[in-house]
């Protein structure tokens, strides 16, 4: 067995593989009874969009349910159950005009009552929905009214730009769930929606199957069936792709070279809406001085990080917004890799090299611990590399790998100051650029602003960004905001990763140049051959 392994190891050549262009099958070759198998990294917890918060459940729900609006590959909001909508001049009243002749999977007609029911359920404190906070603005919930069978009105306490994206919440059926305890309803295991596919079966721990909804309002989907297989181990997912047991898999950077050598696959690359960063606990005396933070940013060789950790599959990040978002703009402070500048700034801040090279100031050593969550190899590697990079300027960083829940407990605790020095972590951004919960000073110590960032100008811009409806104006506001944040360097922004997805070449209907949502955009457009 060892011999077989060595032989297979030796046969892996070191020259880079040839990059093939994407060749997708034509629609004329589509199999009308085609089945697609997709992997899930975890078991779905519950198939009810207002209750679930894990990505596995969302993936399945995306095929079963639909909302008033949805997102296209350019991250724009486009009609779905709502044909059109308008906003009143003062930005307080949104009116959605819904499609007629949409039926639930059980045949019952869909109306505005269902939409109102969905939002009311989310706002109901007895329902364990995590989305509730999305529909409460400064303490006042949004009011939803079914004006008539096909018109829904939402009345906001103040203008709120992110509402458009949030109005795309998947709709749940009133005629089934009214009067029941939504938390524990049987529906959550046997969902009924208005989406392109109907729920068929859920073999606990193994897979979930959905079948074509022939009456889908946007046209009959090409695929007869979609299967979601739960495969928790990343290597096993890759193996399953190679053996044909699944049709798609995400490809981690280390497998990028070798996946090009596997025949029968199309490889897609795109930028997702995520970034990884190094977060300073701003209440820690080591990090209160902005010069220190800027110095550490200058001492970070981000290119080396990307090449070692991501094997080059990523871009340097300088600000808290992804380049794929419409709100992104250049013109932010950038900190080039410059050890001399780093040392100079630290000296200015009062830090002098002590014994064994570690910086000292007023008897305090520049030594601290960074937290990284266990299971994320990339962040671990980044920590190790940063540790060695920063040694060069006399900073001693210790690394502590923690289990996710335990780490969250420390980072999210309501204590002030919190029990950590620094973290390496990432944000997965929403479609709307509003990031108030991350940067506003009132989101500390309870909230996502766990580093304790407090800048009144940024607070003001955050509020303004949400209540301004015009995109171009919002973009300017966020440009200002990002510039200020980059000057303050409350995080060292590390990288935007490049996502790689490999799909078997029998799958068609994919986007050859995917947006941040990936090559699979609308499941009803996907087909397979043979």
């Amino acid at each position: 067995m060892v011999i077989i392994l060595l032989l297979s190891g030796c046969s892996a050549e070191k020259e880079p593989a040839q990059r093939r262009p994407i060749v997708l099958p034509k629609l004329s070759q589509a199999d009308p009874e085609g089945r697609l198998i997709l992997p899930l990294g975890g078991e779905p917890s519950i198939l009810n969009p207002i209750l679930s918060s894990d990505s596995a459940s969302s993936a399945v729900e995306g095929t079963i349910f639909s909302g008033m609006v949805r997102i296209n590959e350019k991250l724009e909001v486009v009609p779905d159950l709502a044909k059109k909508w308008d906003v009143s001049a003062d930005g307080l009243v949104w009116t959605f005009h819904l499609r007629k002749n949409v039926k639930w999977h059980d045949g019952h007609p869909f109306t505005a009552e269902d939409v109102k029911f969905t939002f009311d359920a989310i706002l109901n404190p007895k329902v364990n929905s995590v989305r509730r906070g999305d529909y409460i603005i400064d303490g006042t919930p949004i009011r939803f009214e079914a004006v008539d069978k096909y018109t829904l009105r939402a009345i906001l306490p103040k203008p709120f730009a992110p509402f458009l994206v949030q109005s795309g919440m998947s709709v749940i059926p009133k005629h089934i769930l009214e009067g029941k305890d939504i938390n524990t309803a049987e529906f959550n295991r046997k969902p009924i929606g208005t989406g392109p596919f109907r729920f068929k079966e859920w073999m606990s721990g193994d897979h979930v199957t959905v079948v074509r909804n022939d009456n889908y309002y946007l046209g009959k989907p090409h695929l007869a069936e979609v299967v979601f297989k739960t495969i928790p181990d990343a290597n096993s997912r890759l193996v399953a792709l190679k053996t044909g047991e699944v049709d798609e898999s995400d490809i981690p950077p280390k497998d990028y070279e070798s996946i090009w050598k596997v025949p029968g696959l199309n490889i897609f690359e795109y930028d997702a809406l995520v970034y990884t960063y190094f977060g300073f606990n701003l209440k820690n005396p080591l990090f209160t001085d902005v010069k220190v933070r800027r110095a550490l940013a200058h001492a970070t060789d981000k290119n080396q990080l990307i090449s070692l950790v991501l094997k080059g599959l990523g871009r340097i990040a300088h600000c808290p917004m992804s380049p794929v978002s419409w709100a992104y703009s250049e013109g932010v402070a950038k900190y080039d890799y410059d050890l001399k500048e780093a040392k100079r700034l630290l000296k200015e801040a009062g830090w002098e090299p002590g014994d064994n090279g570690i910086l000292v100031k007023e008897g305090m050593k520049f030594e601290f611990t960074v937290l990284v969550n266990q299971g994320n190899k990339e962040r671990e590697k980044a920590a190790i590399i940063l540790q060695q990079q920063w040694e060069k300027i006399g900073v001693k960083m210790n690394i502590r790998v923690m289990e996710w829940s335990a780490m969250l407990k420390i980072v999210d605790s309501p204590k002030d100051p919190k029990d950590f020095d620094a973290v390496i972590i990432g944000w997965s951004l929403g479609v709307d650029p509003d990031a108030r919960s991350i940067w506003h000073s009132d989101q500390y110590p309870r909230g996502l602003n766990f580093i304790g960032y407090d800048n009144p100008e940024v607070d003001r811009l955050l509020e303004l960004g949400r209540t301004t409806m015009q995109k171009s104006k919002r973009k300017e506001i966020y440009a200002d905001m990002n510039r200020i944040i980059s000057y303050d360097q409350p995080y060292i922004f590390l990288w935007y990763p490049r996502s790689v997805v490999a799909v078997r070449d029998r799958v068609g209907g994919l986007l050859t140049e995917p947006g941040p949502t990936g090559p699979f955009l609308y499941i009803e457009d996907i087909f397979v051959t043979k």
Partner: protein
Amino acid sequence: MRKFVIRRLIHLIPLLIGVSLISFFVMHLAPGDPTQLFTDPNVKPEELARIRANWGLDKPIIMQYLFWLKNAVRGDFGIAYMINRPVTEVIFGRLPATLLLMISSMLLTLLITIPLGVLSAIKKNTWFDNFITVFSFIGMSIPSFWLALMLMLMFSVNLGWFPAVGMYNPLLKNPDFVQRFFDVAWHMVLPLLTMTLVSLAGLTRYQRAAMLEILNQDFIRTARAKGLSERVVLFKHALRNALIPIITILGLSLPDLFGGAFIIETIFAWPGMGRLGVMAIFSRNYPLIMGIVVLSAVLIVLGNLLADIGYALVDPRIRYAKK
């Protein structure tokens, strides 16, 4: 005999209370709680506090335990967090997969281990014996996950004989019993092989040692002296007694089977309880954890009980002594 079984079953009750008590408190001492897993940046902390209250997590621990106990004795283990289904339903949904794998593994192990161990003892110090010895020792030292990955590489990727992941082929249309049977069996080969090879090694060693010890005993010498043929000596007298230790060990290895099963279940994406249990611990899914721990304890004790009964059946001395 019946009294023996009943007595053991009665012992189960304080045992379960002990197990559940320890689990409950240890679990709650762990930092973090289930609401912290809602990691969506848009989730507000007041929402988490509300959900925590909905789940009764703000009451004192002893009250939570007693509340749990009150329901548990009626068979109601509560609702699992996040999944929002009764714990019993969640567990029983996954139990068959684990039991299937474990029982098959135990049977296969027994089937192979007993003849191998016995033969090894009879043919002591021959090349057969030495080969088996070396093989056993190596097998006892291999980390199971390493073996799992190797087997997957060899048989799934390189040779393509068996599927790498899952328990069912979801594309099978309305299979009848026979088709379903073969489908599951095919998927089970690799995980089964891994589990069996790992336990096989140690048990073969043990069986050999036990057989050797029996063969040295007085009553065997007596039987030989009486002139009985070697075959009769072996099968009628030695073998029966040699089975005793193996049954005990099998019983004792039940807890480890649960544990080892988790690693194998994760790699092969086998939808069993092991994976469920570890996921529950990581997500602080208290009702689910309690349910699994209690159930495992019950299964383990029952397993030991069966082992003891088997023991008694095989060894007449024990049976008569109990009278």
